[in-house]
Protein backbone atom coordinates (compact mmCIF):
# COMPACT_ATOMS: atom_id res chain seq x y z
CA UNK A 1 0.00 0.00 0.00
CA UNK A 2 1.41 3.35 -1.01
CA UNK A 3 0.92 6.45 1.09
CA UNK A 4 -1.57 7.88 -1.42
CA UNK A 5 -3.65 4.69 -1.23
CA UNK A 6 -3.47 4.81 2.54
CA UNK A 7 -4.78 8.38 2.45
CA UNK A 8 -7.75 7.31 0.31
CA UNK A 9 -8.44 4.41 2.66
CA UNK A 10 -8.35 6.75 5.65
CA UNK A 11 -10.96 8.91 3.95
CA UNK A 12 -13.15 5.85 3.40
CA UNK A 13 -12.79 4.89 7.06
CA UNK A 14 -13.80 8.37 8.17
CA UNK A 15 -10.46 8.92 9.87
CA UNK A 16 -9.07 11.56 7.54
CA UNK A 17 -9.85 14.56 9.76
CA UNK A 18 -6.66 16.49 10.38
CA UNK A 19 -4.72 14.35 7.88
CA UNK A 20 -2.99 15.72 4.81
CA UNK A 21 -0.87 14.11 2.17
CA UNK A 22 2.76 15.18 1.91
CA UNK A 23 3.64 14.16 -1.65
CA UNK A 24 7.38 14.18 -1.53
CA UNK A 25 9.99 15.13 -3.23
CA UNK A 26 11.06 11.53 -2.38
CA UNK A 27 9.16 9.69 0.32
CA UNK A 28 5.51 10.58 0.70
CA UNK A 29 3.98 10.79 4.16
CA UNK A 30 0.71 11.38 5.95
CA UNK A 31 0.86 14.68 7.83
CA UNK A 32 -1.38 14.60 10.86
CA UNK A 33 -2.19 17.31 13.37
CA UNK A 34 -0.93 16.93 16.89
CA UNK A 35 -4.40 16.37 18.34
CA UNK A 36 -5.28 13.56 15.93
CA UNK A 37 -1.97 11.78 15.56
CA UNK A 38 -2.45 9.14 18.20
CA UNK A 39 -5.94 8.23 17.01
CA UNK A 40 -4.68 7.92 13.44
CA UNK A 41 -1.73 5.78 14.51
CA UNK A 42 -4.05 3.55 16.50
CA UNK A 43 -6.29 3.19 13.48
CA UNK A 44 -3.34 2.34 11.26
CA UNK A 45 -2.36 -0.38 13.69
CA UNK A 46 -5.80 -1.90 14.22
CA UNK A 47 -7.69 -1.47 10.95
CA UNK A 48 -7.41 -4.50 8.72
CA UNK A 49 -6.47 -2.74 5.44
CA UNK A 50 -3.42 -1.19 7.13
CA UNK A 51 -2.41 -3.66 9.87
CA UNK A 52 0.76 -1.72 10.63
CA UNK A 53 1.96 -3.96 13.42
CA UNK A 54 5.70 -3.25 13.28
CA UNK A 55 6.90 0.15 14.41
CA UNK A 56 10.19 0.65 12.63
CA UNK A 57 11.42 4.04 13.69
CA UNK A 58 10.48 7.22 15.51
CA UNK A 59 12.45 10.25 14.34
CA UNK A 60 12.49 13.78 15.67
CA UNK A 61 13.94 16.62 13.66
CA UNK A 62 14.58 20.21 14.59
CA UNK A 63 13.69 22.38 11.61
CA UNK A 64 15.13 25.84 11.26
CA UNK A 65 13.66 28.43 8.95
CA UNK A 66 15.18 28.52 5.48
CA UNK A 67 14.49 30.75 2.53
CA UNK A 68 15.73 30.30 -0.99
CA UNK A 69 17.47 32.96 -3.07
CA UNK A 70 14.17 34.64 -3.97
CA UNK A 71 13.10 34.89 -0.36
CA UNK A 72 10.48 32.14 -0.61
CA UNK A 73 10.12 30.07 2.54
CA UNK A 74 11.29 26.51 1.80
CA UNK A 75 11.46 25.21 5.37
CA UNK A 76 9.33 26.25 8.27
CA UNK A 77 10.75 26.53 11.75
CA UNK A 78 9.55 23.93 14.23
CA UNK A 79 9.87 20.27 15.07
CA UNK A 80 8.86 17.24 13.08
CA UNK A 81 8.19 13.76 14.39
CA UNK A 82 7.99 10.89 11.93
CA UNK A 83 6.76 7.38 12.63
CA UNK A 84 7.71 4.69 10.13
CA UNK A 85 5.31 1.76 10.28
CA UNK A 86 5.59 -1.55 8.53
CA UNK A 87 2.87 -4.06 7.91
CA UNK A 88 4.18 -7.60 8.01
CA UNK A 89 1.10 -8.91 6.19
CA UNK A 90 0.91 -6.35 3.43
CA UNK A 91 4.67 -5.88 2.96
CA UNK A 92 4.21 -2.13 3.05
CA UNK A 93 5.80 0.78 4.84
CA UNK A 94 4.02 3.99 5.81
CA UNK A 95 5.38 7.26 7.12
CA UNK A 96 3.27 9.43 9.42
CA UNK A 97 4.47 12.92 10.16
CA UNK A 98 3.47 15.48 12.77
CA UNK A 99 4.62 19.08 12.92
CA UNK A 100 5.15 20.69 16.30
CA UNK A 101 5.74 24.33 17.23
CA UNK A 102 9.20 25.38 18.37
CA UNK A 103 7.94 26.69 21.70
CA UNK A 104 6.15 23.53 22.77
CA UNK A 105 7.45 20.30 21.19
CA UNK A 106 5.03 17.92 22.86
CA UNK A 107 3.15 15.00 21.33
CA UNK A 108 1.29 11.95 22.57
CA UNK A 109 3.34 8.85 23.29
CA UNK A 110 2.52 5.64 21.45
CA UNK A 111 4.49 3.41 23.81
CA UNK A 112 1.22 1.79 24.87
CA UNK A 113 0.38 0.91 21.25
CA UNK A 114 3.81 -0.42 20.36
CA UNK A 115 6.25 -1.23 23.19
CA UNK A 116 8.97 -0.70 20.57
CA UNK A 117 8.23 3.02 20.75
CA UNK A 118 9.40 3.18 24.35
CA UNK A 119 13.12 3.38 23.62
CA UNK A 120 12.70 5.35 20.40
CA UNK A 121 10.78 8.03 22.27
CA UNK A 122 13.32 8.09 25.05
CA UNK A 123 16.06 8.58 22.48
CA UNK A 124 14.12 11.32 20.72
CA UNK A 125 13.58 13.09 24.03
CA UNK A 126 17.25 12.65 24.90
CA UNK A 127 18.77 13.91 21.66
CA UNK A 128 16.10 16.21 20.17
CA UNK A 129 14.13 17.23 23.22
CA UNK A 130 10.64 16.32 22.08
CA UNK A 131 8.42 15.48 25.03
CA UNK A 132 6.08 12.50 24.71
CA UNK A 133 3.12 12.82 27.05
CA UNK A 134 1.92 9.57 28.55
CA UNK A 135 5.29 7.83 28.19
CA UNK A 136 5.81 5.45 31.12
CA UNK A 137 9.41 6.41 31.86
CA UNK A 138 10.67 9.36 29.86
CA UNK A 139 14.30 9.78 30.88
CA UNK A 140 17.57 10.06 28.99
CA UNK A 141 18.80 6.86 27.39
CA UNK A 142 22.10 7.51 25.60
CA UNK A 143 23.46 10.59 27.36
CA UNK A 144 24.23 10.52 31.08
CA UNK A 145 21.65 11.76 33.53
CA UNK A 146 22.26 15.39 34.29
CA UNK A 147 23.37 16.30 30.77
CA UNK A 148 22.14 19.71 29.73
CA UNK A 149 20.46 20.37 26.43
CA UNK A 150 19.53 18.21 23.47
CA UNK A 151 22.43 17.79 21.02
CA UNK A 152 20.46 17.30 17.82
CA UNK A 153 18.86 20.71 18.07
CA UNK A 154 20.36 23.07 15.57
CA UNK A 155 20.93 25.75 18.21
CA UNK A 156 22.70 23.36 20.57
CA UNK A 157 25.65 24.94 22.35
CA UNK A 158 28.48 22.54 23.12
CA UNK A 159 29.15 22.36 26.85
CA UNK A 160 32.49 23.61 28.12
CA UNK A 161 32.83 21.00 30.84
CA UNK A 162 30.96 18.06 32.32
CA UNK A 163 31.60 16.95 35.91
CA UNK A 164 35.02 18.55 35.87
CA UNK A 165 36.02 17.08 32.48
CA UNK A 166 37.16 19.78 30.08
CA UNK A 167 35.26 19.45 26.80
CA UNK A 168 36.62 22.46 24.91
CA UNK A 169 38.05 21.33 21.61
CA UNK A 170 40.83 23.90 21.36
CA UNK A 171 41.74 23.88 25.03
CA UNK A 172 45.48 23.57 25.68
CA UNK A 173 46.73 20.13 26.65
CA UNK A 174 47.35 19.84 30.35
CA UNK A 175 51.03 19.94 31.21
CA UNK A 176 52.13 16.76 32.98
Amino acid at each position, binding site marked *: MTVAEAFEQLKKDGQAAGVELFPGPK*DAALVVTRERVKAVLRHLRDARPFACDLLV*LVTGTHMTEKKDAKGVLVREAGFEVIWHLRSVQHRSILAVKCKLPTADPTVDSVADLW*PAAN*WHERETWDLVGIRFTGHPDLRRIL*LPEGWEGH*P*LRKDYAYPKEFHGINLEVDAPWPTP
Partner: protein
Amino acid sequence: MADAMTTSGAAAPTQPAKTFALPGDPLRPPDTFVDVRTQELQINMGPQHPSTHGVLRLAIWVDGEIVTRADPDIGYLHRCAEKIGESVSCIQYVPYTDRYDYLAAMNNNLGYCLAVEKVAEVEVPERAQYIRTIAVELNRIASHLVAIGTYGLDLGAFTPFFYAFREREEILRLLEWICGARLTYNFIRIGGVMRDTPAGWVEDIRKFLDLFETRLDEFNDLLTHNHIFVARTANVGVLSIEEAVRYGLTGPNLRGSGLRYDLRREQPYLLYDRFQFDIPVGTGIKGQVGDCWDRYWVRLLEMRESVRIVRQALDQLPTGGEIMAKNVRHLAFKSKAGEGYLGIENPRGELGYYLISDGGANSYRSRIRAPSFCNLSILESMLPGTMLADAVAIIGSIDIVLGEVDR
Protein backbone atom coordinates in the same frame (compact mmCIF):
# COMPACT_ATOMS: atom_id res chain seq x y z
CA MET B 1 18.66 4.53 39.17
CA ALA B 2 19.69 2.97 42.47
CA ASP B 3 23.27 1.96 43.06
CA ALA B 4 24.31 -1.56 42.33
CA MET B 5 24.46 -4.32 44.89
CA THR B 6 21.93 -2.84 47.25
CA THR B 7 18.96 -4.59 48.66
CA SER B 8 15.76 -2.83 47.89
CA GLY B 9 13.89 -1.44 50.83
CA ALA B 10 14.65 -2.12 54.48
CA ALA B 11 16.04 -5.31 55.96
CA ALA B 12 12.56 -6.71 56.44
CA PRO B 13 11.74 -9.46 53.92
CA THR B 14 9.69 -8.18 51.03
CA GLN B 15 8.43 -11.55 49.94
CA PRO B 16 6.16 -13.86 51.95
CA ALA B 17 8.03 -16.67 53.62
CA LYS B 18 8.19 -19.89 51.64
CA THR B 19 8.57 -23.24 53.30
CA PHE B 20 10.65 -26.03 51.88
CA ALA B 21 11.10 -29.57 53.09
CA LEU B 22 14.65 -30.70 53.67
CA PRO B 23 14.63 -34.33 52.65
CA GLY B 24 17.03 -36.72 54.27
CA ASP B 25 18.42 -34.36 56.87
CA PRO B 26 19.55 -36.71 59.63
CA LEU B 27 19.50 -34.00 62.31
CA ARG B 28 15.79 -33.27 61.91
CA PRO B 29 12.70 -35.39 62.05
CA PRO B 30 11.51 -36.20 58.52
CA ASP B 31 8.36 -34.11 58.70
CA THR B 32 10.04 -30.84 59.73
CA PHE B 33 9.72 -27.84 57.46
CA VAL B 34 12.21 -25.01 57.38
CA ASP B 35 11.45 -21.37 56.67
CA VAL B 36 13.52 -20.14 53.72
CA ARG B 37 12.87 -16.46 53.28
CA THR B 38 13.82 -14.82 50.02
CA GLN B 39 14.43 -11.16 49.59
CA GLU B 40 14.48 -9.08 46.44
CA LEU B 41 18.03 -8.19 45.54
CA GLN B 42 19.26 -5.84 42.87
CA ILE B 43 22.41 -7.00 41.16
CA ASN B 44 24.50 -5.23 38.61
CA MET B 45 25.71 -6.96 35.47
CA GLY B 46 28.22 -5.10 33.36
CA PRO B 47 29.26 -2.76 31.86
CA GLN B 48 32.40 -4.88 32.12
CA HIS B 49 31.05 -8.38 31.80
CA PRO B 50 32.15 -10.93 29.21
CA SER B 51 28.66 -12.08 28.31
CA THR B 52 27.34 -8.60 27.54
CA HIS B 53 29.53 -8.44 24.39
CA GLY B 54 30.62 -4.90 25.04
CA VAL B 55 29.59 -2.21 27.43
CA LEU B 56 26.01 -3.07 28.29
CA ARG B 57 24.94 -2.61 31.88
CA LEU B 58 21.97 -4.54 33.16
CA ALA B 59 20.34 -3.83 36.47
CA ILE B 60 18.61 -7.07 37.43
CA TRP B 61 16.27 -7.58 40.35
CA VAL B 62 16.19 -11.18 41.56
CA ASP B 63 14.07 -13.04 44.02
CA GLY B 64 16.18 -16.04 44.90
CA GLU B 65 17.34 -17.12 41.47
CA ILE B 66 14.32 -15.83 39.56
CA VAL B 67 14.64 -12.53 37.73
CA THR B 68 11.75 -10.23 38.61
CA ARG B 69 12.76 -7.14 36.68
CA ALA B 70 15.51 -6.10 34.29
CA ASP B 71 16.55 -2.64 33.22
CA PRO B 72 19.15 -2.39 30.46
CA ASP B 73 21.30 0.71 30.79
CA ILE B 74 22.96 1.74 27.54
CA GLY B 75 24.89 4.70 26.23
CA TYR B 76 28.41 3.84 27.35
CA LEU B 77 29.60 3.79 23.75
CA HIS B 78 27.65 6.79 22.49
CA ARG B 79 29.64 8.64 19.84
CA CYS B 80 27.08 11.15 18.57
CA ALA B 81 26.59 9.27 15.30
CA GLU B 82 23.62 11.31 14.16
CA LYS B 83 25.20 14.62 15.09
CA ILE B 84 28.30 13.70 13.08
CA GLY B 85 26.01 12.79 10.22
CA GLU B 86 24.80 16.38 10.14
CA SER B 87 28.21 17.97 10.46
CA VAL B 88 30.19 16.11 7.78
CA SER B 89 29.31 15.64 4.13
CA CYS B 90 27.60 12.50 2.85
CA ILE B 91 30.83 11.32 1.25
CA GLN B 92 32.80 11.83 4.45
CA TYR B 93 30.20 10.03 6.53
CA VAL B 94 30.60 6.61 4.88
CA PRO B 95 33.65 5.57 6.99
CA TYR B 96 31.76 6.48 10.16
CA THR B 97 29.07 3.95 9.35
CA ASP B 98 31.69 1.20 9.64
CA ARG B 99 31.98 1.91 13.32
CA TYR B 100 28.37 1.26 14.30
CA ASP B 101 27.94 -2.43 13.64
CA TYR B 102 31.62 -3.24 13.42
CA LEU B 103 30.98 -6.94 12.87
CA ALA B 104 29.03 -6.21 9.70
CA ALA B 105 30.60 -3.02 8.44
CA MET B 106 29.91 -3.81 4.78
CA ASN B 107 26.21 -3.95 5.53
CA ASN B 108 26.37 -0.60 7.27
CA ASN B 109 28.19 0.97 4.33
CA LEU B 110 25.57 -0.46 2.05
CA GLY B 111 22.61 0.78 4.09
CA TYR B 112 23.90 4.32 4.15
CA CYS B 113 24.98 4.39 0.50
CA LEU B 114 21.64 3.02 -0.67
CA ALA B 115 19.79 5.66 1.33
CA VAL B 116 21.93 8.47 -0.09
CA GLU B 117 21.57 7.06 -3.58
CA LYS B 118 17.82 6.95 -3.13
CA VAL B 119 17.61 10.60 -2.08
CA ALA B 120 20.25 11.81 -4.55
CA GLU B 121 18.94 9.65 -7.42
CA VAL B 122 22.16 7.88 -8.27
CA GLU B 123 22.13 4.89 -10.61
CA VAL B 124 24.65 2.21 -9.66
CA PRO B 125 26.29 0.08 -12.38
CA GLU B 126 25.39 -3.59 -12.48
CA ARG B 127 28.88 -4.91 -11.85
CA ALA B 128 29.19 -2.77 -8.73
CA GLN B 129 25.90 -4.17 -7.47
CA TYR B 130 27.17 -7.74 -7.85
CA ILE B 131 30.42 -6.92 -6.07
CA ARG B 132 28.39 -5.29 -3.32
CA THR B 133 26.23 -8.38 -2.96
CA ILE B 134 29.25 -10.67 -2.71
CA ALA B 135 30.95 -8.47 -0.12
CA VAL B 136 27.80 -8.03 1.94
CA GLU B 137 26.93 -11.72 2.02
CA LEU B 138 30.50 -12.72 2.92
CA ASN B 139 30.32 -10.19 5.72
CA ARG B 140 27.01 -11.66 6.86
CA ILE B 141 28.65 -15.08 7.19
CA ALA B 142 31.51 -13.57 9.19
CA SER B 143 29.07 -11.77 11.46
CA HIS B 144 26.99 -14.88 12.11
CA LEU B 145 30.18 -16.83 12.82
CA VAL B 146 31.02 -14.38 15.59
CA ALA B 147 27.46 -14.59 16.90
CA ILE B 148 27.53 -18.38 17.03
CA GLY B 149 31.07 -18.68 18.31
CA THR B 150 30.64 -16.22 21.14
CA TYR B 151 27.26 -17.66 21.98
CA GLY B 152 28.90 -21.00 22.64
CA LEU B 153 31.55 -19.17 24.63
CA ASP B 154 28.89 -17.54 26.81
CA LEU B 155 27.45 -20.93 27.64
CA GLY B 156 30.79 -22.56 28.41
CA ALA B 157 31.59 -24.20 25.07
CA PHE B 158 35.05 -22.89 24.32
CA THR B 159 36.11 -24.95 21.31
CA PRO B 160 33.46 -23.89 18.75
CA PHE B 161 34.68 -20.33 19.19
CA PHE B 162 38.04 -21.24 17.63
CA TYR B 163 36.40 -23.10 14.77
CA ALA B 164 34.17 -20.09 14.08
CA PHE B 165 37.06 -17.68 14.14
CA ARG B 166 39.14 -19.90 11.87
CA GLU B 167 36.48 -19.58 9.15
CA ARG B 168 35.97 -15.91 9.87
CA GLU B 169 39.68 -15.32 9.41
CA GLU B 170 39.39 -16.62 5.84
CA ILE B 171 36.56 -14.20 5.11
CA LEU B 172 38.45 -11.32 6.65
CA ARG B 173 41.39 -12.22 4.43
CA LEU B 174 39.17 -12.10 1.36
CA LEU B 175 37.69 -8.77 2.36
CA GLU B 176 41.09 -7.36 3.30
CA TRP B 177 42.32 -8.37 -0.11
CA ILE B 178 39.70 -6.30 -1.87
CA CYS B 179 39.74 -3.19 0.32
CA GLY B 180 42.74 -3.29 2.63
CA ALA B 181 40.92 -3.34 5.95
CA ARG B 182 39.84 -6.21 8.14
CA LEU B 183 36.92 -4.68 10.00
CA THR B 184 36.23 -1.10 8.98
CA TYR B 185 36.08 -1.50 5.26
CA ASN B 186 34.75 1.74 3.77
CA PHE B 187 34.53 -0.31 0.59
CA ILE B 188 31.01 0.41 -0.60
CA ARG B 189 30.93 4.04 -1.66
CA ILE B 190 28.14 6.30 -2.80
CA GLY B 191 27.61 5.40 -6.44
CA GLY B 192 29.44 2.10 -6.50
CA VAL B 193 32.37 0.37 -4.87
CA MET B 194 35.89 1.49 -4.10
CA ARG B 195 37.76 -0.73 -6.53
CA ASP B 196 37.33 -3.64 -8.88
CA THR B 197 37.95 -7.24 -7.92
CA PRO B 198 41.64 -8.17 -7.81
CA ALA B 199 42.92 -11.05 -9.94
CA GLY B 200 42.31 -14.39 -8.29
CA TRP B 201 39.77 -13.07 -5.80
CA VAL B 202 36.75 -14.73 -7.35
CA GLU B 203 38.53 -18.07 -7.59
CA ASP B 204 39.60 -17.86 -3.96
CA ILE B 205 36.05 -17.18 -2.85
CA ARG B 206 34.88 -20.28 -4.69
CA LYS B 207 37.57 -22.37 -2.99
CA PHE B 208 36.61 -20.96 0.38
CA LEU B 209 32.89 -21.62 -0.14
CA ASP B 210 33.51 -25.25 -1.04
CA LEU B 211 35.56 -25.72 2.10
CA PHE B 212 33.19 -23.74 4.28
CA GLU B 213 30.12 -25.79 3.39
CA THR B 214 31.77 -28.95 4.68
CA ARG B 215 32.96 -27.16 7.78
CA LEU B 216 29.49 -25.87 8.59
CA ASP B 217 28.60 -29.45 9.49
CA GLU B 218 31.30 -29.42 12.14
CA PHE B 219 29.24 -26.90 14.07
CA ASN B 220 26.41 -29.40 14.25
CA ASP B 221 28.71 -31.93 15.88
CA LEU B 222 30.33 -29.41 18.18
CA LEU B 223 27.46 -27.22 19.24
CA THR B 224 24.06 -27.71 17.62
CA HIS B 225 23.32 -31.16 18.99
CA ASN B 226 25.62 -30.93 21.97
CA HIS B 227 23.66 -32.16 24.95
CA ILE B 228 24.80 -29.42 27.32
CA PHE B 229 24.22 -26.68 24.75
CA VAL B 230 20.70 -27.92 24.00
CA ALA B 231 19.92 -28.15 27.72
CA ARG B 232 21.01 -24.53 28.17
CA THR B 233 19.12 -23.14 25.16
CA ALA B 234 16.08 -25.26 24.28
CA ASN B 235 12.83 -24.01 25.89
CA VAL B 236 14.74 -21.02 27.28
CA GLY B 237 13.73 -17.47 26.41
CA VAL B 238 10.71 -18.45 24.34
CA LEU B 239 9.48 -15.53 22.26
CA SER B 240 6.18 -15.51 20.39
CA ILE B 241 5.76 -13.84 17.01
CA GLU B 242 3.30 -11.30 18.41
CA GLU B 243 5.63 -10.24 21.19
CA ALA B 244 8.58 -10.00 18.80
CA VAL B 245 6.62 -7.81 16.37
CA ARG B 246 5.26 -5.61 19.15
CA TYR B 247 8.79 -4.87 20.29
CA GLY B 248 9.98 -4.20 16.75
CA LEU B 249 12.34 -7.16 16.52
CA THR B 250 13.69 -7.95 13.08
CA GLY B 251 16.23 -10.26 11.55
CA PRO B 252 17.12 -13.71 12.92
CA ASN B 253 15.42 -12.93 16.23
CA LEU B 254 12.08 -12.45 14.50
CA ARG B 255 12.60 -15.38 12.16
CA GLY B 256 13.60 -17.58 15.10
CA SER B 257 10.07 -17.07 16.38
CA GLY B 258 8.73 -18.56 13.17
CA LEU B 259 7.84 -15.54 11.03
CA ARG B 260 9.24 -15.73 7.51
CA TYR B 261 10.12 -12.07 7.14
CA ASP B 262 13.26 -10.95 5.39
CA LEU B 263 13.68 -7.58 3.71
CA ARG B 264 15.78 -9.17 0.99
CA ARG B 265 12.58 -10.91 -0.05
CA GLU B 266 9.93 -8.42 1.07
CA GLN B 267 11.42 -5.29 -0.48
CA PRO B 268 14.30 -6.47 -2.65
CA TYR B 269 17.19 -4.05 -2.85
CA LEU B 270 20.41 -4.56 -4.83
CA LEU B 271 19.80 -7.60 -7.03
CA TYR B 272 18.29 -9.98 -4.51
CA ASP B 273 15.32 -10.67 -6.74
CA ARG B 274 17.69 -12.44 -9.16
CA PHE B 275 18.92 -15.00 -6.65
CA GLN B 276 17.31 -18.12 -5.31
CA PHE B 277 17.55 -18.57 -1.58
CA ASP B 278 15.42 -19.79 1.28
CA ILE B 279 14.51 -17.89 4.42
CA PRO B 280 15.04 -20.22 7.36
CA VAL B 281 12.72 -19.86 10.33
CA GLY B 282 12.64 -21.43 13.76
CA THR B 283 10.50 -24.57 13.98
CA GLY B 284 11.08 -25.68 17.54
CA ILE B 285 13.15 -28.77 16.74
CA LYS B 286 14.67 -29.07 20.20
CA GLY B 287 11.98 -27.35 22.24
CA GLN B 288 9.39 -24.69 21.61
CA VAL B 289 9.28 -22.38 18.61
CA GLY B 290 11.10 -19.17 19.37
CA ASP B 291 13.49 -20.38 22.03
CA CYS B 292 17.19 -19.55 22.19
CA TRP B 293 18.12 -22.67 20.28
CA ASP B 294 15.85 -21.67 17.39
CA ARG B 295 17.50 -18.28 17.11
CA TYR B 296 20.90 -19.97 17.04
CA TRP B 297 19.70 -22.48 14.45
CA VAL B 298 18.31 -19.76 12.15
CA ARG B 299 21.72 -18.06 12.10
CA LEU B 300 23.43 -21.32 11.24
CA LEU B 301 21.03 -22.00 8.38
CA GLU B 302 21.32 -18.43 7.12
CA MET B 303 25.03 -18.91 6.57
CA ARG B 304 24.24 -21.73 4.16
CA GLU B 305 21.82 -19.48 2.29
CA SER B 306 24.46 -16.77 2.10
CA VAL B 307 26.82 -19.29 0.54
CA ARG B 308 24.17 -20.00 -2.08
CA ILE B 309 23.71 -16.31 -2.81
CA VAL B 310 27.45 -15.67 -3.15
CA ARG B 311 27.79 -18.64 -5.53
CA GLN B 312 25.01 -17.32 -7.75
CA ALA B 313 26.42 -13.81 -7.66
CA LEU B 314 29.84 -15.12 -8.68
CA ASP B 315 28.26 -17.04 -11.57
CA GLN B 316 26.35 -14.00 -12.79
CA LEU B 317 29.14 -11.46 -12.22
CA PRO B 318 29.52 -9.61 -15.54
CA THR B 319 33.01 -9.44 -16.95
CA GLY B 320 34.20 -5.88 -17.25
CA GLY B 321 32.11 -2.78 -16.88
CA GLU B 322 31.96 0.26 -14.69
CA ILE B 323 32.13 0.00 -10.90
CA MET B 324 31.26 3.61 -10.12
CA ALA B 325 28.33 5.72 -11.20
CA LYS B 326 29.20 8.41 -13.73
CA ASN B 327 27.25 11.28 -12.22
CA VAL B 328 28.80 11.17 -8.74
CA ARG B 329 31.44 13.82 -8.32
CA HIS B 330 32.98 12.83 -5.04
CA LEU B 331 34.83 16.06 -4.33
CA ALA B 332 31.77 18.24 -4.84
CA PHE B 333 28.94 15.85 -4.05
CA LYS B 334 25.61 17.49 -3.41
CA SER B 335 22.47 15.54 -2.74
CA LYS B 336 19.13 16.56 -4.15
CA ALA B 337 16.62 18.06 -1.77
CA GLY B 338 14.24 15.53 -0.31
CA GLU B 339 13.82 12.98 2.36
CA GLY B 340 13.75 9.23 2.32
CA TYR B 341 13.93 6.10 4.42
CA LEU B 342 15.58 2.91 3.28
CA GLY B 343 15.86 -0.29 5.28
CA ILE B 344 18.07 -3.25 4.45
CA GLU B 345 18.52 -6.67 6.00
CA ASN B 346 21.55 -6.48 8.25
CA PRO B 347 22.76 -9.71 9.93
CA ARG B 348 21.00 -8.41 13.06
CA GLY B 349 17.79 -7.15 11.53
CA GLU B 350 16.49 -4.14 9.71
CA LEU B 351 19.12 -1.45 9.39
CA GLY B 352 17.58 1.75 8.14
CA TYR B 353 18.72 5.24 7.37
CA TYR B 354 16.29 8.11 7.25
CA LEU B 355 17.86 11.10 5.53
CA ILE B 356 16.61 14.63 5.08
CA SER B 357 18.60 16.63 2.57
CA ASP B 358 18.16 20.29 1.73
CA GLY B 359 20.34 20.10 -1.35
CA GLY B 360 23.65 20.72 0.35
CA ALA B 361 26.70 18.52 0.80
CA ASN B 362 25.64 17.48 4.32
CA SER B 363 22.46 15.75 5.32
CA TYR B 364 20.12 17.98 7.25
CA ARG B 365 19.19 14.97 9.40
CA SER B 366 20.57 11.46 9.30
CA ARG B 367 18.64 9.11 11.52
CA ILE B 368 19.83 5.55 12.00
CA ARG B 369 17.51 2.68 12.70
CA ALA B 370 19.91 0.30 14.43
CA PRO B 371 18.57 -3.25 14.68
CA SER B 372 20.44 -4.08 17.89
CA PHE B 373 18.90 -1.06 19.62
CA CYS B 374 15.40 -2.29 18.92
CA ASN B 375 16.24 -5.93 19.63
CA LEU B 376 17.78 -5.08 22.98
CA SER B 377 14.66 -3.35 24.27
CA ILE B 378 12.87 -6.68 24.52
CA LEU B 379 15.05 -7.73 27.45
CA GLU B 380 12.70 -5.79 29.75
CA SER B 381 9.94 -8.14 28.72
CA MET B 382 11.89 -11.39 28.23
CA LEU B 383 14.01 -11.60 31.36
CA PRO B 384 11.38 -11.41 34.13
CA GLY B 385 10.42 -14.91 35.22
CA THR B 386 13.56 -16.63 34.00
CA MET B 387 16.44 -18.01 36.02
CA LEU B 388 19.38 -15.69 36.51
CA ALA B 389 21.70 -18.16 34.76
CA ASP B 390 19.41 -18.13 31.73
CA ALA B 391 19.76 -14.36 31.42
CA VAL B 392 23.19 -14.91 29.87
CA ALA B 393 21.74 -17.42 27.41
CA ILE B 394 19.00 -14.99 26.41
CA ILE B 395 21.26 -11.96 25.97
CA GLY B 396 23.65 -14.03 23.87
CA SER B 397 20.83 -15.32 21.67
CA ILE B 398 19.65 -11.77 20.90
CA ASP B 399 23.11 -11.11 19.42
CA ILE B 400 23.68 -7.42 20.01
CA VAL B 401 26.56 -5.21 18.99
CA LEU B 402 26.90 -2.35 21.43
CA GLY B 403 28.57 -0.09 18.93
CA GLU B 404 25.28 -0.06 17.11
CA VAL B 405 23.05 0.15 20.16
CA ASP B 406 24.75 3.29 21.41
CA ARG B 407 25.92 4.79 18.11
